[in-house]
């Protein structure tokens, strides 16, 4: 039982690490980045390529992953999303273009990684960090698991605090509501947009490296698999609410774990998506989402 909880917690933390960056830019500047999964994967892949050459500790790989993620994310913003937003007639049509643009861009790092690895799994077995397992009180937990959970929660709290308390966090939210008026308040749209995409990319890269350590190996298409789970977690929690992503990620992981432990696992996907379906039925803006502010 306790072991199941630990497993759910670490699974949820992985969803959370991945979803945080995605939710950050989606909930504020309205960019639903479908290339997030590819960025996540490619950051881990780049770290893998490097660690195969030089034996590096975990921290170094995390830094590399975050930098690669940030760089890719900024590149996507500059090359695809910014031009789309500049051309889009209105926010809503821009949203769709961004979705598709993301899907298109994502194909590129995916193809490169698939080509290099022959679609095989890759991992950091060459890294100097070693996973240790602690067995206490009848349950087992690895040092990587502890790190993943701690990192996910810490980063989530940091992101929440940043958005709530800081000026730039507030500016980011206003940018998502009405970019033009935000610029009339003195917000540099370009810089802030790039900055938040860089943060999101760094989070993706960080998540990629941590997940690879945690699972031992990932494959080029791991990012896509997580993308839809993260999408679900964000919606479940309520778009725009960072606390919602936290809850959404853990609820999803918990639901999956419960189904798995109670049944033979055949219905895991159906039930976890059933949960989303059901939650949305009763709370149409997600668990923590605010109702759309609109009046006649």
């Amino acid at each position: 039982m306790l072991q199941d909880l630990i497993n759910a917690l670490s699974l949820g933390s992985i969803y959370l690490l991945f979803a945080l960056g995605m939710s950050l830019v989606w909930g504020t500047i309205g960019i639903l980045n479908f290339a997030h999964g590819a960025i996540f994967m490619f950051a881990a892949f780049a770290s893998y390529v490097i660690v195969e050459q030089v034996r590096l500790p975990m921290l170094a790989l995390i830094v590399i992953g975050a930098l690669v993620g940030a760089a890719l994310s900024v590149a996507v913003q500059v090359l695809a999303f910014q031009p789309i937003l500049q051309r889009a007639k209105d926010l809503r049509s821009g949203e769709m273009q961004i979705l598709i643009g993301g899907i298109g861009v994502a194909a590129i790092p995916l193809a490169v990684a698939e080509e290099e690895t022959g679609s095989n799994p890759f991992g950091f077995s060459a890294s100097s960090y070693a996973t240790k397992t602690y067995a206490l009180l009848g349950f087992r937990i690895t040092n990587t698991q502890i790190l993943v959970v701690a990192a996910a929660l810490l980063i989530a709290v940091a992101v929440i605090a940043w958005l709530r308390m800081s000026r730039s966090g507030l500016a980011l939210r206003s940018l998502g509501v009405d970019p033009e008026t935000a610029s009339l308040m003195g917000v540099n749209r370009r810089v802030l947009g790039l900055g938040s995409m860089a943060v999101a990319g760094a989070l993706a890269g960080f998540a990629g490296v941590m997940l690879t350590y945690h699972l031992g190996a990932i494959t080029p298409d791991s990012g896509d698999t997580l993308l839809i789970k993260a999408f679900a977690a964000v919606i479940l929690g309520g778009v725009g609410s960072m606390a919602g992503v936290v809850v959404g990620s853990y609820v999803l992981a918990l639901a999956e774990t419960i189904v798995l432990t109670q049944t033979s696992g055949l219905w895991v996907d159906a039930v976890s998506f059933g949960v989303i379906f059901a939650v949305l039925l009763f709370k149409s803006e997600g668990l923590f989402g605010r109702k759309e502010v609109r009046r006649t």
Partner: protein
Amino acid sequence: MTAWYDSNIILIQSTFVGLLTALSLQVPIRFGVFSFAGVGCYGIGAYTTAIIVIRLGWPAPLAMGAGMLLAAVTGYLLALVLSRLGGLYLGMATIAFDLIVTVVVANGGELTGGPSGLFGAISDVGTVHVALTSLVVVVLLALSERGRFGRRVEAVREDPELAAAMGVEVRHYRQLAFVISALLGACAGGFNVLLRTTIAPTDIGFSLVTLALTMIIVGGSRSWAGAFIGAVIFTWLPSVLEFSGQWQKVIYGVIVALAAIWVPGGLLGVITDAYRSWQRSRRAGGSSDVGPGDGDRGTVSPRAEGTPA
């Protein structure tokens, strides 16, 4: 010509199936309903058709009809159940529905063939049938894009409250969108299974959603013609790109991204804009004395004119 037709028959059929699938997502989007349930209904249509043809041996049209009926009922129920949802929340709920359909058929045992799916749905359905059906669908949809109904759909999408103030029963229009989407999806699924004789759970997953969505965004989301353009491009692109070997995916991705960036209204938007400005320049050059009063005599709106029929 016939040699070309023969060797590309699969792609030609796929184009029509792709068109119907794309339309099943486009119609609700045009109604302002962000529903991807069309893909789940594609699954329902495909599986129902296959099961009936294989197990009961009914004629193909009857089997497809049954699939579409089942899908339409499902679509209507979804519309009732999800009536409070909007935007991406509705999108997610309908994606959840699609994935649930996938899991259900994957675990359906004997009936659905489990993960390996169903084989041997042999019939004499061919290119002519899917082409004619697409034609009828397109004509009906083209009609729905014009005049009174077209305007109302526009209002329901852009500003449902305003639409209500104009006396439009927004709820009914949304339900209609769900049902049409379900019918189109099931029709596409039914045709696909009859033309390919097989269906598996992996055929109806999330990737079908992204493919259909890519078709309508790159083609154009406001009119059937956009879906058609998209269906043609994304059915044929892979075979066109075959020469590029291992970099095919990269080129494909670049093309999709470039389309998203450079043609915000979809390719259809580019065509319509070009047509409109050509028309304007012709009008300006031809008769400069057309007063503004003349404008409202023509009942054909510039939008409708702009749509290549």
